[in-house]
């Protein structure tokens, strides 16, 4: 199978590189203490984000989840105000009220919500409005596979089908529900689950940008023509964990340090005079060992599914170099400006307190 019609490999690669650079800059800023709170990076989701967002323009709307930086970058959000917002500046996109989890841009239009699963019903509402106010425009909900166990997301699949709405649900399946392995808490098959609602379903490897582009294009075209909602299942990997500081990632990067911290209290608890049976305790060890093994496998094997690396293979080396150099220059300039605007902030600029 060749590249899909209309697919611009260079443009797609440029968009993925831009997302990756912005995400990396924010991860670095988080580590440097410039980003308050949590940061859920979209590193590893670039293939999905670009593959879907490439089909959107104008009044096409997006309901985003906690990994929302990249889709906004893909829709052309201003890098400076976006990064200032994530760093908690009043000069940011949302005047310092949102932070990275609740970025809002009515001009795109796109709104993010940190409550798991809410992008579904929000997109359903956007689709109702779009169908009435901007015929031909679609609404896209980005969510993870873990959100598919949240009732309201399933209810919104049903509403979308029952009302025949121009909406696309994009399931970015990274296999982890926060730090719980999704398969341990999920029954059945998610793609079959979506299909059973009557959604038009496509399934792709999210690291293969051309496949995402093709599948998303089919579902979005269908939705624009009033033929009903779609569901795109795309696998991905989250090398940074649930958020920066994720204890599982810490465990993988520094097993000895984490074992020294976690081990003794666990052993002490297992040895308590009162507690479960030996069998209960062996089962507990098995549960944690299994999770650790799954994490180790995911963070080594699946880490090879890098969408940016795959996108690079679709281009000549000269084009790759040219794109990377120009995007790097652009993003670095924005980062330099934003960092100099923020200064150093060990206490995030809070000088109050009486202690």
């Amino acid at each position, binding site marked *: 199978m060749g590249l899909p019609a209309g697919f611009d490999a260079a443009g797609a690669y440029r968009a993925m590189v831009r997302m990756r650079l912005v995400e990396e800059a924010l991860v670095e800023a988080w*580590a*440097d*203490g410039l980003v*308050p*709170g*949590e940061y859920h990076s979209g590193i590893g989701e670039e293939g999905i984000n670009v593959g879907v967002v490439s089909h959107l323009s104008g009044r096409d709307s997006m309901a985003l989840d906690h990994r929302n930086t990249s889709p906004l970058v893909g829709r052309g959000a201003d890098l400076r105000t976006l990064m200032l917002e994530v760093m*908690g*500046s009043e000069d*940011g996109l949302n005047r*310092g*009220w*949102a*932070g990275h*989890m*609740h970025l809002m841009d009515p001009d795109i239009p796109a709104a993010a*919500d*940190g409550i*798991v*699963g809410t992008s579904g019903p929000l997109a359903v509402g956007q689709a109702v409005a779009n169908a009435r106010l901007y015929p031909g425009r679609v609404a896209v909900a980005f969510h993870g596979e*873990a*959100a598919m*166990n*949240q*009732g309201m997301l399933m209810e919104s699949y049903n509403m979308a089908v029952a009302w025949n709405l121009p909406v696309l649900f994009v399931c970015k399946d990274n296999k982890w*529900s*926060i730090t*719980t392995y999704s398969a*341990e*808490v999920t029954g059945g098959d998610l793609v079959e689950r979506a299909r059973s609602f009557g959604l038009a379903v496509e399934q792709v490897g999210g690291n293969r940008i051309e496949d995402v582009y093709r599948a998303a294009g089919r579902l979005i075209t269908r939705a624009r023509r009033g033929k009903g909602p779609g569901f795109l299942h795309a696998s991905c990997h989250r090398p940074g964990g649930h*958020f*920066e*500081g*994720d*204890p*599982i990632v*810490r465990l993988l990067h520094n097993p000895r340090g984490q074992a020294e*911290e976690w081990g003794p209290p*666990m052993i*002490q*608890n*297992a040895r*308590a005079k*009162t*507690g*479960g049976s030996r069998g*209960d*305790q062996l*089962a*507990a060890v098995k*549960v*944690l060992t299994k999770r650790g093994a799954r994490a180790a496998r995911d963070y080594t094997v699946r880490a090879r599914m890098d969408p940016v690396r795959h996108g690079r293979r679709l281009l000549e080396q000269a084009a790759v170099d040219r794109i990377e150099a120009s995007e790097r220059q652009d993003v670095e300039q924005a980062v330099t400006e934003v960092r100099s605007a923020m200064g150093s902030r*060990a*206490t*995030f*600029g*809070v000088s*109050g*307190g*009486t*202690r």
Partner: protein
Amino acid sequence: MTVMRYGQAIDFALGEAMARNDNVVTWGEDVRLIHRDLLARFGPERVRDTSISESAFLYAGIGAAMAGLRPVVEIMLIDFLPVAWSGIANAASKFRDFSGGRWEVPLVVRAGCGGWYTDGGQHEQTLWGQLSAYPNINVVCPSTPADAAGLMLTAVESDEVVVFLEHQLLSEQWIDFLAGNSRTTVSFDHLVPPDGVEGEVPLPLEPVPLGQAVIRRDGSDVTLVSLGVGAHRCMEAAQVLTASGIEASVLDLRSVYPLDKDAVLEEARKTGRVVVVDEDYVRGGLTGEIAALLLEAGVTTRYARVAVEGTIPFAPHLEYAALPNAERIVTAAKRLE
């Protein structure tokens, strides 16, 4: 006595309660990893991970409680409880009454709450005022490790519904994720009350009764009423007020419901000035409730409140200004002179 951290004390008390009664179980998102010590001691049958399905796993807790277990259902952050609000508003608060008093719901809802650590308006609410509005829902938020352990023990052994709120600034876990072991470039030291984070816990554990406030500092000029981190902010404010010749009492309520009315009234009669410091919304909550209590009791007192007046902003300096900080408390107390 032994020294424990706040979150550690809660898990220690829950472990004690689980050891005493085989029917105590806990479930919620990520609990096997977060409470790995309890998992190691009691095994995966009694310490269960849930999917991200708050409405179902809270209601399941109600069902299990009525069917003979004593579930401690953990909602990672209280901000996620509204996803499952019907479980509180229509079920946990109602079923004992619907049964004509024949059926108890011995459920504990455990959740992180509160701010000061820069996590934005959807992860830092307390919601304790709204929670305490419903019938049959007890709501507590301890400010020290000793109270955290004592209240958890009481909550699990109670036959009633108890919402046990664990303040995120005091609980080591969140600060550990967001600073601590994950990055050394950030410090919350200027905001974290040392007495709340770590302290002595009596052994054997002493249960702390629901609805019993405690005086943290005795003064004659003004009474500062609060709970959770707010109690510590009041202590900080009291220090500042001393320099101005004002001696403040600090009353730590520990429970939003039941409210220790006697303790509030006694303090109000003594000092004649009450400042309620609430890390919850100013409308429809604890501050209004205490004002009504004072009026109904006919206690003549001057009154002020320091609370959260809108969405908690993300930017740290805006967040600090929006929360009931010591500077705001001092200003409010001085105005009552």
